[in-house]
């Protein structure tokens, strides 16, 4: 169980983390989400005392620096490629083992676990980002900890690696461990996280289950497609539902249940080619929630202020095709 209390981090006049409190429960994967510059990595570093600032974080009641052998209790992956390029991968792990009285054999076991056994004796100078992440994961797992804090662990991993990581983290959570993962890959987090902590501009925006988060920001609608709508629009509206015709020829109905729309269409004698429930994804819910706290706002070519007024791209709003 991780308990985070009132973390604050200021860099001059900028407040990167602003009185942040939340808790991370064992037995589930907790996703840590936020736009770029929202303070996710800073929060992770504050939690384990790597960055200094007011507030406190406890791991089963103890601060990180009070743990006797911290790697046996909390596994950390805070940065890809945080290793000396000239030190062999195995030596990097053995060195960390020595710090926490972990059996040196564990280095080879963890390298095997993350798929780096073949390069154990290689110097990581030429490691790719993905290989660096795997080595960092191996380091996090050395002490077989009950808590994991992973900052963007899937960065640079190939699809197989991402799938392995997802299954592995879910397995660890199923064993009752506490897994706290920050990520930008929202579709991945939707598959992985049971619970989400969302921050924007250093402040807590949401702390709830993933399902609740999606539902909270969710725009649910029903898509109805038919070769001939006849009187169905009137029938649907007569039941108090909102109906919008879409450019692709379908209807979007909100405020209704799927079965009820099907029944109404049937009563109107309409042939149905498509009838489906749609909900916003975690990504859409996330974008909606964090739109005001985004630090690095972007524009599309052709939009006002970009100086690229004449340029457009096929398929984009305002495009020239």
């Amino acid at each position, binding site marked *: 169980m991780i308990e985070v209390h009132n973390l604050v981090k200021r860099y001059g006049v900028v407040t990167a983390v602003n009185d942040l409190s939340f808790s991370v429960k064992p037995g589930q994967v907790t996703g840590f989400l936020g736009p770029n510059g929202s303070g996710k990595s800073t929060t992770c570093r504050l939690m384990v005392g*790597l*960055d*200094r600032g007011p507030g406190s974080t406890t791991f089963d009641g103890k601060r990180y*620096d009070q743990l006797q052998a911290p*790697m046996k209790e909390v596994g950390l992956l805070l940065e890809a490629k*945080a290793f000396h390029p000239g030190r062999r991968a195995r030596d990097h792990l053995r060195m960390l083992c020595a710090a926490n009285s972990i059996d040196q054999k564990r280095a080879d076991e963890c390298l095997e676990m993350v798929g780096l056994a073949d390069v154990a004796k290689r110097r990581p100078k030429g490691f790719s980002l993905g290989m660096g992440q795997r080595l960092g994961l191996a380091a996090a797992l050395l002490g077989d900890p009950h808590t994991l804090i992973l900052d963007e662990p899937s960065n640079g991993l190939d699809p197989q690696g991402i799938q392995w990581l997802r299954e592995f983290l879910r397995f660890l959570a199923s064993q009752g461990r506490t897994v706290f993962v920050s990520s930008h890959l929202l579709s991945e987090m939707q598959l992985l996280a049971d619970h989400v902590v969302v921050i924007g501009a250093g402040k807590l925006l949401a702390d709830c289950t993933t399902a609740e988060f999606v539902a909270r920001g969710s725009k649910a609608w029903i898509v109805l497609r038919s070769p001939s709508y006849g009187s169905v629009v009137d029938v649907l509206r007569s039941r108090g539902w909102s109906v919008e015709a879409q450019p692709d020829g379908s209807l979007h109905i909100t405020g209704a249940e799927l079965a009820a729309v099907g029944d109404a269409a049937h009563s109107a004698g309409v042939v149905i080619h498509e009838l489906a429930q749609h909900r916003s994804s975690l990504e859409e819910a996330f974008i909606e929630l964090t739109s005001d706290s985004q630090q690095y706002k972007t524009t599309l070519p052709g939009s006002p202020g970009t100086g690229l007024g004449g340029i457009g791209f096929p398929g984009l709003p305002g495009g020239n095709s």
Partner: protein
Amino acid sequence: MNPFAYEWLRIKTIRSTWVMITISTVLTLAIAIIATLANKGTAGNLDRNWSDIVRVSMTAMTWLFGALLGIFAFGHEYRYGTIRPTLSALPKRRVAALAKFVVPAALFSTVTAISGALGIICARILAGSALTISWSANHLIRTFALTLLQVALWAILGAAIAAITRSQIASIIGLLVWVLLIENLLVLLFTWDALESVKGVRKYLPGAAANSMVGTPDPDVLGWVGGSITFALIAIGFAIVGTELFARRDA
């Protein structure tokens, strides 16, 4: 937690450590051989000749390599971003810092002792009966012991500078510029009549104090006791400042 085991593994698993040890040992042996050949056939106090061979061969370059090894203890961590894994494994920062001062100092003192001993053996073989070793001679043993202490203090000072600057390059440049340039300029300045009243300060500069630990007696420099105390205070003072900054700053 075992910060000393960690630091020992950290230091021994990178090539730069062994490169520096090799170069330092080769230079020590080379200087011992050259000094022996230069002293061969010299009349006078034989113990003094031996003492000079030991002093010159062991201190000519080892101070620099000791300081570099110390600088690397912190410098590598910041240069390659390994400070975060290190402090994740060893969150008690003052203890981690202590290991970073002690391990390079102990390692390079040991290396200096071995290379110095090898230098003496080489010199003995080369000199034959022209020189005799008298280990009971106070100044010879003292020179040997103080050289090891001096190297250890240079390693501690180097590590402290890197802990303060958090930059390997800045630390190396700063150390070299101070010892080779600024301190010599200050000594020159102190020869001016206008600075006569403060010229005694030059004895207490780090390089001068370190040299006087193993140097020949000179009224313008501190004796070996004063030099040892002064240089130890300078190194420890820097180490305390470096440790406190290391403990308080973001990793």
